């Protein structure tokens, strides 16, 4: 494996275009576009302020750069480097900015979630959506890009609005049965919307596209509830990871639990357990020159490898402080493989930021704070 030279970036803003041809990185207030194969700089754009967020449009023609401090969004075009677009939210501030699925509209969420402004790049028109809810995941686009679901809160009640992304008109608006909606997610086939409560109550509600409540599911009461949710790519299963360190899978016909996976502290019943073993070079504390420090913190100093641990394996459990909110227990990340055969879960306080499957469904990438790991699956192996 060869490595290229190290490029600078800031804010972890480094994204490959959806068509896979270009790589965009942000360095402070500059946006650098490179060709993926040659890594030659194709374009260089300068924004007005430090870029807080950068996103490719779905057709890889435009990039938006949001500067939250100055409530500015600048859009750059790949085809025409001269083209420029600047959206100024004014005094109302900017908290988040994103593309719509068609790549021609930008949705800006203002400060304090006062409203969402929908800017159209085709017509320069503006639409407003009032009372968006400030929650973990209050906005979701369906996979085919037709519909957008938005959580709203008015008069201490939760509502969900479904918009048609073509012309942004409101299709449905209905009240949900939640006390404090924490997130919503479309099923991959776009027919079911999963809506879940905040972690104070375990409640998952399922609504059909036209706003009817299909079913609710609640596994237990009182303890902290849902932490993470994931649909299977075939829309057949909905995986719910909760704070009690269990993953429950619901099926799409009856919306009842069909499987439950636990994360016990002592693993005894799986096939293989891979354990990461880190070997840190011993750095004597006397000779702490600058050089030593940089060496110690470089990417290649801590070598880790994965060993197969013999069963039963005891996972080190760190009991979280009960006085703090959002404790680091529970299943925090779920990912289905693309053929819906496997699900990868992350439980507890492991330093894994994200789990993503390869689209062929046989390898998994774990991205941690400093490292990433690719797990390849053989025909009859399972990774934990």
């Amino acid at each position: 494996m060869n490595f290229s030279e190290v490029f600078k970036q800031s804010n972890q803003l480094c994204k490959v275009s959806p068509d896979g041809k270009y790589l965009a990185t942000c360095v402070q207030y500059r946006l650098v576009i490179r060709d993926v194969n040659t890594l030659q700089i194709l374009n260089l754009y300068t924004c007005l302020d430090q870029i807080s967020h950068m996103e490719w449009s779905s057709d890889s023609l435009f990039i938006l750069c949001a500067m939250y401090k100055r409530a500015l969004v600048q859009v750059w075009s790949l085809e025409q480097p001269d083209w420029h677009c600047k959206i100024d939210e004014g005094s109302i501030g900017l908290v988040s900015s994103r593309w719509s699925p068609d790549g021609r509209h930008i949705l800006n969420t203002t400060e304090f979630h006062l409203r969402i402004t929908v800017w159209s790049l085709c017509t320069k028109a503006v639409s407003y959506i009032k009372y968006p809810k400030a929650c973990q995941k209050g906005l979701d686009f369906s996979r085919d890009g037709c519909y957008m679901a938005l959580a709203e809160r008015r008069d201490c009640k939760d509502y969900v609005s479904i918009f048609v992304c073509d012309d942004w008109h409101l299709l449905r608006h209905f009240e949900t049965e939640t006390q404090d909606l924490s997130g919503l997610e479309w099923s991959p086939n776009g027919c079911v919307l999963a809506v879940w409560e905040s972690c104070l109550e375990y409640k998952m509600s399922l609504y059909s596209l036209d706003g009817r409540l299909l079913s609710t599911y609640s596994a237990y009461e009182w303890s902290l509830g849902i932490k993470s949710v994931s649909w299977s790519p075939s829309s057949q299963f909905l995986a719910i990871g909760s704070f009690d360190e269990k993953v429950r899978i619901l099926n799409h016909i009856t919306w009842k639990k069909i499987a439950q996976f636990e994360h016990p502290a002592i693993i005894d019943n799986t096939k293989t357990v891979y354990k990461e073993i880190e070997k840190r070079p011993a750095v004597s504390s006397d000779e702490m020159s600058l050089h030593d420090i940089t060496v110690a913190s470089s990417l290649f100093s801590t070598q880790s490898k994965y060993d197969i641990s013999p069963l039963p394996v005891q996972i080190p459990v760190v009991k979280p402080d009960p006085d703090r909110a959002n404790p680091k227990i529970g299943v925090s990340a779920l990912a289905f493989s693309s053929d819906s055969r496997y699900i990868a879960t992350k439980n507890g306080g492991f330093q894994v930021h994200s789990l993503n499957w390869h689209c062929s469904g046989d390898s998994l990438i774990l991205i941690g704070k400093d490292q990433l790991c690719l797990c390849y699956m053989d025909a009859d192996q399972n990774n934990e």
Partner: protein
Amino acid sequence: MGDWGLTETSMDNYEISILSHVAMSPSRHNNLMSAYSLPSSKSSYSVISAFCTEDNIPQCISYINQELGSLGLAAHIQADPPGRASLNAAPALNAMYELLQIHRRSMNNVEELEKEQLKKTSTLEHMQTSNSRLKDQLELSIREKSGLHETERQLQLKLKTLQSCLKTEKDEVQKLQSIIASRASQYSHDAKRKEREAAKLKERLSQLLVDRKDKKLAIEMLNSVGRSDGKRSHWKTAKATASREAEMYKSLLSDYEASQRALMLENAELQKVLQQMKKEMMHILSPCPPLNRGGSAEESQELGDSDREERSAETSRETLDQSCEHAREQLTNSIRQQWRKLRNHVQKLDNQASLVQNQPPSNAEVIPLETHEHEVERMRLEVQQCKEFIHAQQQLLQQQLNTSFDDETAALLNGCYTLEEKERLKEEWRLFDEQKRNFEKERKNFTEAAIRLGREKRAFEEDRAAWLKHQFLSMTPFADRMRSSSSDGQSALSVKSEPEIRTSSSKAPPVKSSAYTTFSTPKSSKSAAVPSTIDVCRTLRLIPDYSSSRHSNQRRWQESSATEDEESWLKSKSKVCSSDLSIFSLDEDKNPLT
């Protein structure tokens, strides 16, 4: 107490009674009294005369003196005047007085003793009663104690359960407390967040009010961008909204239809599986009657009947569409029924099996497990014994073969064995000679036949030569046709001769094979008679050589016959043997046959 109004006579009676009862207990006081009173009525004189009479007064006096001395009293009684029947009154009276005193004292003692005895008996009784009372009390108290133990135990048990309940309750309380704590922390966290946000809002609001320089929101674009799908945007009309709704419903419906299709397929498969299960269950249940025995036969007969009825009824139902709920219900009901029947049947079989195991076998069909096992064991033993026997036999045989007896017996033994062998060999030799003779005969016949054939062949050849000459001289285009016809005839004849070959070959295969071997390899044959066969073959071979001079393929014939297989050789030989010589001479036509 003694009656002092005793007369002398009674005193004498008392003396007598003393003599007769030397040791008298004080309890015999009444007896004494009776002893006193009894003889008083009688004439005392006759009694007194037993001890003291007029004659033996001095002896009595001496005796009484002795007695008094033994009692410790002064023995001063003497007769006065001596030798006469009267006594000295004073010592006698003194003695009497002293005796009376003694008596009184002893009576007093007796009385006291009796009093004491009474007292003691009464205290004993009292003790006994108190003892029994105390025993009863003790028993009662023991029972009470056990009862109390029991209650104590139960209370302890209750205590334990209550403690465990308490523990669980405490745990639950703790859990709930922890939940409350976490919820409380979550609430406070959220509340703080909201408060911070509100504070920020307030700050912002105040800033804006102060600032008043409202920066308008604006967008500047170099030029509008086309739509992603390239089309123009549409006006927002009611029709558009309706079409949107329609689209949404369409997508929902298509999704439902897809799921329904999948469910239908699944349903159909499951129904198929259920049908199959039902059929198999019926099948299992119905051939029961011949296997069952006893009372269960009728039951299973009933089962079989009901099954058949059901089957006939249900096959008609099965033709209906299974998707209707009625049919589905029926199917599930019938499956349940069948399953119940099957389960009952299996249970019955289990019971039967256990019964049969327990009871002695009443039915010849069913052999209980033990006898079966016995039989098996017995057979195993038999097998083992036989094996041992065989082994022993083998050993003995070995022994006999290897044993080193003295030479005589060894020779004798060997002689015995060899004798047997010799006999056998003689028998075999005899048979062999017989066979040899038979073969000789046959061979002779063959050679004669061969010679005859040779002669005939020669004659035929001459005829043929003449005929051919005649033909040649009268040359016609029909000569070829003649040849071909004769070759057909030859092939037909060869076919005919096949079975002949086989029969002839089966008769004397060793002879022919030996002949063949001698032909192809120069090995010598087994018996001495073979060379004559060789001669025959040679003559046979040579005969065609001599007879036809037109042989261009003589050599070929020889070679081919050398290499040909047995069958074709036999074929040719039998052709020689057969009387029809028309085949043989046509060598050119015969060769393709080889």
